[in-house]
């Protein structure tokens, strides 16, 4: 109970960090991550130079999962506490997740082309399940914008975002359950399948992309809240 309260307090502290500080931190971290990817990390013994896509591809995928999980958490807050800000926060989280999901598909396709000689393989469970997850969240927007703004839209969107979170562990576990292991498994129950500078570079890239995603989330959420307040002001002036 006390650890949950500490986590909530920590999240509260993070949400008070000014946006310019977050932007600078993102820039520094992403630049450092790129420097590590291209100048520090060694070439992979099997894949050679092309393995360097891994650092951003996997980090972006984990970030996308984190965004969808964040969207589900905000959706739960909306349904549980009826916090009016939670619906907008959930929507922004899902939107961020979709942007990072697009990047996962694009970078994954490029990596597949180098490694497997094909842009896409329908026989790969991991690829298809991630595509299902991606399309599921695309449909979230179709649902949301087909309903007039109000409590009904917020409630339906929240329920949909909560259902979607079930697909995350399925997508994550798919490569472990797959029979034909073409897609590499980098995280096992015993920890990551790599070490040394590869692990250091991956950790920096992961932190950089999480901070970047959080910065973009705060930027978009700030814009959306300002937009909503302006709409109310315009209505008051009309």
């Amino acid at each position, binding site marked *: 109970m006390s650890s949950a309260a500490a986590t909530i307090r920590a999240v509260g502290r993070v949400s008070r960090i000014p946006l310019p500080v977050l932007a600078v931190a993102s820039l520094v971290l992403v630049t450092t991550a790129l420097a590590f990817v291209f100048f520090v990390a060694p070439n992979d013994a099997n894949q*050679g*130079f092309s393995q360097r896509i891994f650092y951003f591809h996997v980090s972006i995928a984990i970030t996308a999962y984190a965004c969808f999980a964040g969207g589900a958490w905000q959706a739960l807050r909306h349904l549980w506490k009826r916090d009016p800000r939670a619906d907008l926060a959930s929507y922004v989280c899902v939107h961020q997740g979709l942007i990072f999901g*697009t990047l996962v598909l*694009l970078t994954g396709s*490029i990596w597949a082309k*180098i490694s497997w000689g094909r842009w896409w393989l329908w026989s790969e469970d991991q690829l298809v399940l991630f595509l299902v997850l991606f399309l599921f969240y695309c449909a979230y927007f179709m649902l949301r914008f087909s309903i007039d703004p109000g409590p009904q839209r917020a409630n339906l969107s929240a329920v949909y975002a909560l259902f979607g979170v079930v697909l995350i562990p399925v997508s994550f576990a798919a490569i472990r359950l797959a029979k034909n292991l073409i897609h590499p498994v980098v995280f096992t129950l015993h920890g990551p399948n790599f070490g040394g500078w590869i692990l250091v570079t991956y950790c920096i890239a992961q932190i950089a992309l999480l901070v970047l995603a959080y910065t973009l989330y705060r930027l978009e959420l700030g814009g959306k809240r300002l*937009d909503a307040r*302006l709409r109310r002001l315009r209505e008051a002036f009309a």
Partner: protein
Amino acid sequence: MTTAEKYVTAAYCVVFAVVLVYVLIMALKLQRLEREVDELAGRAPEEDEEETPREPARVG
């Protein structure tokens, strides 16, 4: 430049381009919001001027 290097560069360029487009869209949206705030701020004094001037209240 080898084929692998070209593909890796392309992957990182795609990430950069998508984030850049996203930030540009956000910047354009914030510019629009700023214009709307200016527009509303411009309308506020006009409505004050339209109000009928009140006579000073007599006390005593």
